[in-house]
């Protein structure tokens, strides 16, 4: 059994809402509200959900880029959620992030070489020769020409900028990369290039990915396990095939039927959900999905379902799916 690289337990991230001239806290947005998951070395966890479901906040909390309200995040056994800033400095090189908009996450005034080497300059002391060598190797590994080192971000296309972002993320040889919608802003033909690159790098360096996306077909292609988020909670978590072959939570089912059928496959019947996700500012009694769920019953309004194991490795938070008794509790 491979030990877990990242373990998240009951993670909560709440943002205060202030109002009035005194900026008093009048409430909280429960962006992430008690989620648990783990990622093994070299594996990919896909995180799906609609806007506002807390995907990005989860990714940021993993790297401690936002303050964690409660719960723990451990990377290789080190508790990130409790780490002090000098401890964080030691942990951070092991975890990196790739952002959604490739151009806006690159400093327009730095050359490609300086962008890629920035994490190195910050964390390691390299001689000029070694630094140049490291840059060359990173550029090779993401498929950028070495001749481009002195160019600036505006001279590159979206796909190339994303490659620069990936090279920068790789510079410190991380164990975990949080990919926040890394291909959402790219054209189809370029998306495939970046996805293949991420795959190759994963195999080469045994990287673990938290792959955040709203594109179900990309998640299916990239992920080993998938977690579906709705309003700050994980409503279903399962290995990729189990989830796509037999989605159990009504929200997952609706999400999958709503995704446009891929060309050439038979058109499926769409489950069209009524309404939109409610706001995550107030506490919601019962199941978070209740207001849009086509199968909601009285019990859904009274009690929030917990994420329970309903089949092997398949966890669902829904009253319709009673938990099975696990043979042994570990």
């Amino acid at each position, binding site marked *: 059994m491979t030990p877990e690289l990242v373990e998240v337990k009951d993670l909560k991230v709440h943002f205060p809402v202030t109002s009035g001239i005194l900026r008093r806290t009048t409430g909280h947005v429960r962006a992430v509200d008690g989620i648990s998951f783990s990622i093994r070395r070299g594996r990919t966890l896909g995180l799906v959900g609609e806007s506002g479901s807390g995907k990005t906040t989860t990714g940021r909390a993993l790297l401690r880029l936002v303050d964690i309200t409660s719960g723990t995040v451990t990377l290789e056994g080190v508790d990130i959620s409790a780490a002090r800033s000098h401890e964080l400095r030691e942990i951070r090189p092991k975890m990196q992030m790739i952002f959604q908009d490739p151009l806006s996450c690159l400093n327009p005034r730095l050359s490609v070489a300086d962008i890629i080497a920035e994490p190195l300059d910050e964390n390691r002391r390299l001689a000029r020769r070694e630094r140049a060598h490291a840059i060359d190797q990173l550029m090779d590994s993401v498929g950028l020409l070495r001749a481009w080192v002195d160019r600036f971000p505006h001279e590159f296309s979206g796909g190339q900028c994303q490659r620069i972002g990936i090279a920068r993320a790789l510079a410190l040889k991380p164990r975990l990369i949080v990919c926040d919608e890394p291909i959402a802003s790219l054209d189809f033909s370029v998306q495939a290039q970046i996805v293949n690159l991420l795959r190759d790098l994963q195999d080469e360096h045994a990287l673990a990915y938290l792959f955040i996306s709203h594109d179900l077909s990309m998640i299916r292609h990239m992920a080993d396990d998938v977690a579906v988020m709705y309003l700050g909670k994980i409503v279903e978590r399962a290995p990729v095939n189990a989830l796509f072959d037999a989605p159990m939570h009504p929200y997952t089912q609706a999400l999958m039927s709503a995704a446009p059928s891929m060309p*050439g496959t038979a058109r499926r019947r769409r489950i069209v959900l009524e309404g939109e996700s409610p706001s995550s500012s107030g506490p919601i009694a019962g199941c978070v999905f209740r207001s849009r769920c086509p199968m909601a019953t009285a019990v859904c309004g009274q009690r929030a379902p917990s994420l329970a194991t309903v089949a092997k490795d398949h966890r669902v938070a829904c009253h319709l799916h009673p938990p099975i008794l696990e043979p042994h509790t570990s």
Partner: protein
Amino acid sequence: MTGTLLEVRGLRTVFRTREKTVHAVNSVSFDLHEGEVLGVVGESGSGKSVTMMSLLGLLPSPPADIVEGTVTFDGRDLLSMDTAELRRICGAEIGFVFQNPMTSLNPVLTIGHQLMEPMRHHLGLSARAARSRAREFLDLVGIPDAGRRLNDHPHQFSGGMCQRVMIAMALSCTPRILIADEPTTALDVTIQAQILDLVASLRERFGMAIVWISHDLGVVADIADRVLVMYGGRIVETAPADDLFRRPRHPYTRALLETVPAAHRCGRGRLATIPGQTPTLVEAPRCCSFAPRCTIAITRCREEVPPAISLPGHREAACFLAGQHNDP
């Protein structure tokens, strides 16, 4: 076969700036038949939106300049019309839904005001009649409590609801053509599903022709009867939707379909990619714009622009090899 509602021939649009001229639309010709849903797909910069905006004179000129072409709508030439005449058509007979619903609505006016404006202008309705019709259409696109929501401002609506308002506005004068430019791109998939269902039901009810621009092949496969594929400012392939996705004839269409991970097959395989980048369009095409990235390009592809070749089954492909190349 139903009649042709809109006929576009040899449309060419360029953008002139001080440094350079960008050839955004290069000799685009297509027909739109009554009651059909025409999907337009292509990557960013392929000229999808510019083509449609050129039809109605919606592009600011300068920098945009429609150099060549004719656009015939119902026997009238749209390109030679003056602004006043175009205004009578735009909104009344041809409705437009833009990509970003939040920025297309005026934030300081109420939803009701914005909905009533085209009806009062085009249909000459009184304020009272326009208001009741506005409520009717808001109800139709599935906004609850329509009567009260007319007094709300756009910021009180979510993205999906704003897009519904835009659709209600475009439909309120019962246009004969609805042009929707990436209407669901900014929305979540479950909201997108709601909008797609809505459009399908509205089309049944009003029988208008729809031009649906999207970069999402899945959405187009879902909604369109016929599809235009654009690349580098040209139409590279036209075909009935099912045939296009089952048997693409242009190498670009084929490559594009292969890059999409199919939902039914999965695993740790690699995705097919199209090497290289999309063309920059700084000069008028002198050869096939896809030739540099094409795997089957021949010398001729780099020397002349391939014309649209008619193929059996009401389809066309702008490729020298489309006629000969059989299915792999």
